């Protein structure tokens, strides 16, 4: 058993591409080797901006020899009447490199055939690696590739060296004019001299001697440890930001930390502005103590030390300039309150074919009002109108033009400083929540309602132009918007029919949209429900439980969820499975029936009369429970209906010869079907029983 070690040395790969690129390299090497029965025992990866490394342990020296049976012509065609081999047999033997008498006869379903046992000698692992490594490297799916020099590439950045060693011996190949070997180099200007490596252990040791840490998670740990230490020494702690830490570990190979200070005067800026400026401009962390920022920052350098203090001084100089800019924007912005910026919104395009943000704002005020009415939350209506009116104003501020990631937040901060009530500024502040799956939804109903209105307005508008996202392209972030709608409706428990909100949004666009309202609703509903399925699936509901509730057709999401939860609860209870089976049976019987009303007087059998009576009780009971939103009770009553239904099917022949009786029974079943499927479309539930598999 032996080790394959691979290092590709290149110019700086963008931070965001490092992990996926390395992972893909490892996966594809592993899969291809596995296909050759050379499955590595372990796969280890490492990367820095300037190198990707891969160690595969436990490889055999050769792939195993293979013995294969090759089937030739049928026996009948292989020998003539005299038993002599025909041309077909001779040709087959020649192709296999054998004599005819070395072939054998095998029995198959189709009769007897000539066959040959072919041995393929397994290739040496080094030979195989020399073939597949450059092919896999060249074929990695980088998000963006380039060429260099005389047209070498395409790859993510120019390659400068490749180490490829199997058990210490060079695996020979070439990629983009670079030959593999056993030479690598350290940091390009701090330790540029090339040196030999013999295997992964030797490599790690020699890199460490040059202070290069090739493993990303180790760099991350070292950076964090140094930062914590420095922050503590300054009497504070690091303002956490996992994404920033991940980035910092991806932009250096020597994980050094540099600490800097700035003028405490800048602490008069809002915390959000300081933290964002440090993060976006300087990739730096803030330092805080008891919730208040200190006039300090921490970032990385691609070196271990700062002997002359120049790295620190340089970073401080840049941070000071950036904070000065931020202070300028902040002061400029505050000269004009948000409410006075309405005219600027008219100049700001929301979408070329959907008009300006001023128009959007107008729609949001209306749509917010409609949502309040529908929810019966009229006491919030004034607040919602006020928040919606101010919602997009911060897009006209210098601060948001500079830091787009502060949109919403900045409007909230300015509104707060202008003395707006908490619910108003908080609603503006939270409007882009949830931005990612980890984010909470906006606090409080006002923020939730405007957040919902904003997203539904965008979804309906863009869908209305026929610009529905595709699987690979979603330039307007509509998936995230739809996910936001679903999460706000579910987690905020906004029991409102979203179809109605969308229809209102459509109406508010006037004649701007290009598709008819019906078509827009029909395309956005499945888009929305994909997110519903996904999110409820995450909560542990089975897909058929979700389908059964969704199929009822409502777009009031808390209601849909309550139905899913009810199915989940009742599913295992006695009577439920039989009633599901009966529902499926009814659906089969009624596949193409007519619509008639039940005539009680011609229900002749006692089982059908009992069914009729029980059904009346069921209908009233479920109607009453449904009105209370008690879907568990609905489903339990339906489950309790199983016995009488079963008895009906056992004792009564639905398809009676008497057409009048038959149609009456079908009509009864149809009425029952409507009630059975009102809480959940029971036929969508998968029953673990062969003949009742879901379609």
């Amino acid at each position, binding site marked *: 058993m032996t080790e394959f070690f691979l290092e590709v040395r290149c110019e700086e790969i963008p931070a965001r591409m490092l992990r996926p690129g390395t992972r893909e390299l490892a996966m594809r090497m592993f899969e291809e080797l596995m296909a050759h029965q050379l499955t590595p025992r372990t796969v280890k990866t490492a990367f820095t901006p300037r190198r990707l490394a891969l160690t595969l342990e436990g490889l055999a020296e050769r792939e195993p020899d293979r013995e294969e049976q090759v089937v030739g012509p049928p026996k009948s065609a292989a020998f003539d009447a005299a038993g002599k081999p025909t041309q077909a047999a001779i040709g087959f033997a020649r192709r296999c490199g054998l004599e005819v008498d070395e072939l054998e006869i095998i029995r198959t379903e189709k009769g007897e055939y000539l066959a040959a046992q072919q041995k393929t000698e397994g290739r040496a692992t080094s030979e195989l690696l020399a073939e597949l490594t450059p092919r896999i490297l060249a074929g990695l799916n980088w998000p963006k590739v380039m060429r260099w020099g005389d047209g070498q590439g395409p790859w993510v950045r120019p390659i400068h060296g490749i180490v490829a060693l199997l058990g210490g011996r060079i695996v020979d190949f070439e990629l983009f004019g670079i030959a593999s070997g056993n030479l690598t180099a350290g940091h390009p*200007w701090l330790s540029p001299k090339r040196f030999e490596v013999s295997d992964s252990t030797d490599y790690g040791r020699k890199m460490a001697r040059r202070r290069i840490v090739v493993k990303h998670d180790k760099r991350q740990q070292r950076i964090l440890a140094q930062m914590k230490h420095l922050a503590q020494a300054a009497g504070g702690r690091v303002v956490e930001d996992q994404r920033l830490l991940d980035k910092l570990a991806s932009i250096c190979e020597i994980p050094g930390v*540099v600490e800097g200070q700035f003028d405490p005067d800048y602490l008069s800026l809002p915390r959000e502005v300081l933290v964002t400026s440090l993060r976006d401009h300087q990739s730096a962390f803030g330092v805080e103590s008891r919730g208040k920022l200190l006039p300090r920052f921490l970032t990385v350098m691609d070196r271990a030390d700062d002997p002359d203090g120049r790295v620190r001084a340089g970073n401080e100089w840049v941070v000071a300039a950036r904070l000065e800019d931020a202070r300028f924007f902040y002061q400029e912005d505050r000269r004009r309150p948000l409410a006075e910026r309405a005219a600027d919104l008219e100049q700001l395009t929301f979408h070329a074919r959907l008009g300006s943000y001023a128009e959007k704002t107008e729609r949001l005020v209306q749509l917010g009002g409609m949502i309040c009415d529908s929810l019966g939350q009229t006491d919030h209506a004034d607040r919602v109108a006020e928040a919606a009116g101010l919602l997009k104003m911060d897009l006209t501020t210098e601060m948001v033009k500079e830091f787009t990631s502060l949109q919403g937040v900045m409007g909230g901060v300015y509104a707060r400083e202008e003395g707006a009530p908490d619910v108003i500024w908080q609603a503006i502040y939270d409007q882009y929540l949830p931005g990612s799956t980890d984010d909470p939804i906006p606090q409080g109903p006002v923020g939730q309602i405007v957040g919902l209105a904003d997203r539904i307005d965008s979804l309906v508008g863009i869908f209305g132009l026929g610009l529905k996202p595709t699987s690979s392209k979603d330039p307007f972030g509509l998936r995230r918007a739809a996910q936001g709608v679903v999460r706000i409706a579910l987690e905020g428990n906004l029991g409102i029919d979203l179809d109605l909100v969308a229809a209102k949004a459509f109406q508010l666009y006037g004649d701007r949209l290009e598709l008819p309202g019906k078509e827009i609703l029909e395309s956005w509903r499945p888009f929305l429900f994909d997110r519903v399925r996904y999110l409820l699936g995450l909560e542990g509901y089975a897909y058929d439980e979700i389908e059964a509730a969704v199929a009822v057709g409502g777009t009031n999401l808390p209601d849909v969820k309550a139905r899913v939860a009810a199915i989940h609860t009742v599913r295992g209870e006695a009577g439920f499975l039989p009633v599901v089976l009966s529902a499926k049976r009814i659906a089969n019987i009624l596949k193409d029936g007519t619509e008639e009303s039940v005539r009680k007087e011609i229900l002749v059998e006692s089982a059908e009369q009992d069914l009729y009576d029980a059904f009346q009780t069921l209908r009233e009971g479920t109607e009453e429970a449904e009105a209370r939103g008690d879907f568990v009770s609905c489903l339990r009553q339906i489950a309790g209906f199983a016995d009488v239904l079963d008895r009906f099917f056992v004792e009564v022949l639905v398809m009676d010869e008497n057409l009048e009786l038959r149609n009456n029974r079908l009509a009864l079943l149809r009425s029952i079907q409507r009630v059975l499927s009102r809480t959940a479309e029971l036929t969508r539930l998968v029953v673990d029983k062969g003949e009742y598999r879901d379609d």
Partner: protein
Amino acid sequence: MERVSLQRLIHQLSEFWAEQGCVIQEPYDLEVGAGTMHPDTFLRVLGPEPWRVGYVQPSRRPADARYGENPFRLGKHYQFQVILKPSPADVQPLYVRSLEAMGIDLSLHDLRFEEDNWEAPTLGAWGLGWQVMLDGMEITQFTYFQQAGGLDLDPISAEITYGLERLAMFLGRIRSVYDVEWVSDGPSYGAVRHQDEVEFSKYYFEVADVDFLRSQFDGWEAESGRCLEAGLVLPAYECALKCSQLFNVLDARGAISVTDRVAVIKRIRRLAVDCAAEYVASRERLGFPLLGSWLETGDD
């Protein structure tokens, strides 16, 4: 702290890149937005001929003008632009040495290459590369050109663009660009250029005659087409550059609406694309005279 003057930086960079076999050119004698638009970059990167050049290019960005009041932003700044075609394998080490030639001791500084891709829609051009950060300050744009004038490039050129004011400010730890020394112990950047910034800001934002500039745009656009018809690609390209600058001034003047913008960019791009195609054809007619002009340079 290094003692820095603007003209010393220019001198050091010119000397360094001259040693690397670059033609040391002068700025293009028209108003342009960036060193990339100089025909010695935009046109020379096209086609198979090798090319090595270095020059200073005063670059006009009317929208960035600030009446001489902002310590960082200028309506006109100076770039030192280098093109190496084909990009040599050791282009990064060469760049690092150019920093050392300016007296930057990399054993004391932090230098990082952060992803920053470049795209110029008006030129139909894009490339991949980095912004180079020295101690956390962006000092250079480093780009491998992939396309120009809508044409795929082969060979590939490396473009290195140094922001001279930023470098001088940063190395001297100077807070305002106007305090940068143009000449050591001589006049400052402000003494040399401040009036220029004030007057052009006023011109770009308040005085420029929109109707006149629009008619100029139309005129130069037509002239570019006429030149191309006459097979004169270099004059045609100059006309295109004039259109590009007129667009920038009109934009700063607030005379380009959001919907206009796309259309105007398209018109300039059309000119650039036509010039690019015609340039390659014209060089071909001449037999690509620069082929073989540089000896192969070393690999790393």
